[in-house]
């Protein structure tokens, strides 16, 4: 990578020399690539596939296996997308940490909170289901969580009386 332009116009002859050495190899190669290789390539494109939404597991009849299969496939695709989202948020947070190193607690606080929220939501939906992911298990997990929250308040605030409703 090249150095940024200097503020006061003074140049470093050693750095200039090293840049010149780098250019002796880089210039011909770049010229060859841009004039010969890239110009002779056909310009073709590729697209990002978009899937239609199908009925989710809570809208399927219990004996409709085809609907359940489609819901399972949609669940798998959504899980991939959500993993990527978590990965992006995590990457942003990590980059902020590295670049703001001594002041990271103050400057990256918002990104940290975002990452905590996003990963919490992801784990709420997808984690602790075992190795074979199953859309019905995820649905039942949601149902149990709602029941638990109805009985004991938000998750993380402790259990009240065991038999309270």
């Amino acid at each position, binding site marked *: 990578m090249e150095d940024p332009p200097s503020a006061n116009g003074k140049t470093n002859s050693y750095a200039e020399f090293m840049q010149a050495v780098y250019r002796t190899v880089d210039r011909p190669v770049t010229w060859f690539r841009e004039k010969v*290789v890239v110009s002779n*390539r056909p*310009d073709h494109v*590729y*697209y*990002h*596939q978009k899937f239609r939404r199908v009925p989710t597991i809570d809208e399927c009849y219990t004996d409709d*296996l085809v609907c359940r*299969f*489609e819901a399972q496939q949609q669940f798998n695709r959504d899980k991939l997308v959500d993993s990527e989202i978590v990965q992006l948020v995590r990457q942003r947070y990590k980059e902020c940490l590295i670049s703001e190193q001594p002041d990271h607690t103050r400057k990256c606080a918002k990104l940290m909170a975002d990452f905590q929220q996003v990963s919490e939501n992801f784990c709420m939906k997808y984690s602790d289901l075992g190795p074979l992911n199953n859309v019905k298990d995820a649905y039942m997990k949601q149902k149990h969580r709602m029941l638990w929250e109805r009985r004991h308040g938000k998750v993380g605030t402790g259990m009240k009386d065991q038999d309270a409703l």
Partner: protein
Amino acid sequence: MAAFSLLRAFASKVNLPKNAINQGILVLRSNPNNALQVVRQMSEHRTMHIKPSRWSWNRFKDFMHFYIMLGAIPAALVITYVNLFIGPARLAEIPEGYVPEAHEYFPHPITRWMAKHINKSYQQEYELMCHHIYEVEYEQKLRKAEHRIKQKMAEKQDTQAYYYQPVTSRNERSIRVNTETDIEMSGTN
């Protein structure tokens, strides 16, 4: 070519040491004192060179040549050509009202070619699976219904259908026809 066969016939009969080994005859050799001298051929200046077998080494070389000349080098050439002169595709928005084909969702040209000519698309496999599940589910439901019907019939005992075994005489008829033609053709003993 006729001369060669003549030479060959000549060489097999002439009094040479190599013919003596197989035929066990004595070889006559002239010596400087003008007399023929009988020399018993007990050993040859040519002996068998006893050495370990080179079979595995030769087979190794054969395999190396096969996999490198016919495998690695053509593959490397094709992949280099494709990467240099065709190159990966660039990402673009899907135009309005256009449904891209399955192979247009991949960037690399070789993957695109395989998706177009070799592999089944995601949609095709998905729909095949849906149809398979539909058929299997149908058979499952039929079996469950049959089971429930049989149970009810056993409970209530009010229908003869439980005891009716349907029979076809298709097999018996064909056996009879075959036996008759056999007897016609080959008779009884």
